[in-house]
């Protein structure tokens, strides 16, 4: 078990290293372009050369990369070109905002999708099952910006119940969170619910559930004691991996509702060509994705006794 976790951890570090190198290669191998970005399009070649020399850009590429990595590990990602502030000062508050958004989404989505999925999977082909299938195909077909458009048209323009932007300029306002959270839950819950349903349905037809039923156990004991634990292994990994998907959705939603989160920051940085900010944001995004993969792998092993022990023994 420990060996497996270490192995996965090693793979994670390796991926992060390669990603960082690729990013650095893409964005900073062309020194003059970097200087042009920092000093603005009207700077002269001489100014740029001078700046490069001053900032130590004329040292070998690998040395620069090493220094960048060392700084990044200490939390120093350089200076944002657009916001004229240290990247780390920008990053953390934005990340916190996004964490609030994502936390709410998960808090709503997980109970909703697991309950619906388990209930539907328990009775394959029942009315609830078919209803859920329909609903989840429908909601997963509506991209975030489209459902945002529907919801805004309805709740903002027609009914005038909710604000159409979530920039929170006047301080924290929970009403501004309703639509972004709703959009993300709507798009994500269907997938998890379907996975849960499939997993539960498969477990319910397995021979060991037959054994449990033919042992004469009451139905609640069969479901809670025998089916649920096995059925939730697959959805668990899916939920953790959902973080990766959520990050994509978060960008769209934050842009749509002008929410001051991490996704919007990444987007602005990319549109503006704010090199250091892009690098930092991308590294954070990839870290979240890779770390959720790591958690999902390790969690899967912990939940599954067959693997948990097989790796230790032998």
């Amino acid at each position: 078990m420990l060996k497996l976790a270490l192995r996965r951890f090693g793979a994670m570090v390796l991926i992060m290293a390669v990603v960082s190198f690729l990013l650095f290669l893409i964005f900073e191998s062309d020194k003059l372009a970097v200087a042009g970005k920092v000093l603005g399009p009207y700077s002269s070649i001489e100014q740029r050369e001078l700046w490069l020399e001053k900032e130590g850009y004329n040292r070998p590429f690998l040395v620069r990369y090493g220094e960048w990595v060392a700084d990044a590990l200490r939390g120093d990602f350089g200076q944002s070109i657009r916001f004229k502030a240290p990247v780390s000062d920008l990053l953390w508050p934005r990340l916190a905002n996004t964490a609030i958004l994502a936390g709410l989404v998960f808090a709503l989505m997980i109970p909703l999708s697991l309950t619906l999925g388990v209930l539907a999977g328990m009775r394959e082909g029942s009315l609830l099952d078919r209803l859920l299938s329909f609903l989840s195909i429908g909601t997963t077909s509506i991209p975030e910006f489209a459902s945002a458009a529907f919801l805004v048209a309805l709740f903002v323009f027609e009914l005038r119940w909710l604000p159409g932007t979530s920039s929170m300029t006047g301080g924290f306002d929970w009403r501004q969170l309703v639509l972004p959270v709703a959009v993300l839950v709507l798009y994500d819950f269907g997938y998890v619910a379907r996975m849960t349903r499939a997993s539960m349905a498969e477990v319910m037809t397995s021979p060991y559930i037959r054994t449990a039923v033919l042992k004469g156990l009451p139905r609640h004991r069969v479901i809670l004691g025998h089916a649920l634990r096995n059925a939730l292994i697959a959805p668990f990994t899916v939920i953790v991996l959902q973080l990766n998907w959520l990050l994509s959705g978060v960008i769209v939603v934050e842009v749509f509702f002008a929410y001051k989160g991490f996704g919007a920051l990444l987007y602005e940085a990319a549109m503006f060509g704010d090199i250091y900010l892009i690098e930092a944001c991308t590294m954070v995004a990839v870290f979240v994705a890779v770390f959720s993969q790591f958690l999902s792998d390790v969690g899967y092993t912990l939940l599954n006794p067959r693997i948990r022990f097989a790796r230790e023994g032998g």
Partner: protein
Amino acid sequence: MAVRGRRDRSEALPLLAAALRSLGVLRESPVAMAGAAILLFWLAMAVLAPLLPLADPNLPLEPLRPPLSVSADGTATFWLGTDIKGRDVLSRLIWGARRVLVWAGLATLAAYLVGIAMGLVAGYRGGWWDEILSFVANLLLSFPVMVLYIVVITRIGASPLNIVLAVTFASAPAIMRIVRGLVLDLRTRDYVLAARARGEGALWIMLVELLPNARGPLLVDACLRMGYTTIALATLGFLGLGLPPPDPDWGAMIAETQPMGAFAGHAMVFPALAVSSLVLGFNLLADGLREISLRD
């Protein structure tokens, strides 16, 4: 010439019959039928766009007209209204369908070619081939999709070709994983051993023995992926990173309208409906196909 023509027909007929038969399979699942119907509708719209009596999608006429309104000179009806720049929404929707179907199709195809090749080699060859290809796939999959799109496109620019490239980057690793998984399962089948035992080469085994037997799950996945790609293209359009304006793009239509949305809700809702229905078509077809394949 005449001889060749006859021969062609005799070769083509069974092919056509086979294609029709495989369409007939859809009749077993109402869900698949519904999906196919939606897709056929959009396909027809996309193909017929130049023939339909539509206004020029890029021509500003009268801004912010509501749906079903008649133009000032009484000659034209704006069935779905006009947008903030006065362009006909219906026309833009239909031309937009043409654009998204073409580029989503091409992008998915490219991703499939790369993904299948990678998956076949990784799954069948194994060893170092597998280690390296799987690492590359993991690397690409460790980017949240939209982050990958944004990084790639802001770096190389938003041309149609670059978008195909970005989709390939994002989708091929996922396809590769599916193919690899299927191949790992199939390669231990006795018929593959039989092929090896009679001295078949790797290429024959991959293309003739393995790939045809992976077609069921791949077909389902291809439908889903067409849906994802449609979403991705439209989302890029929404973010201003999609196919360049002024040609209509469903995502961009929403983004353009959003600031003035209170006055032109229709110009936002209709493109959203269009993209959702098209994706729904792909998802329903995929679901139906999966259901059919599980039955046999």
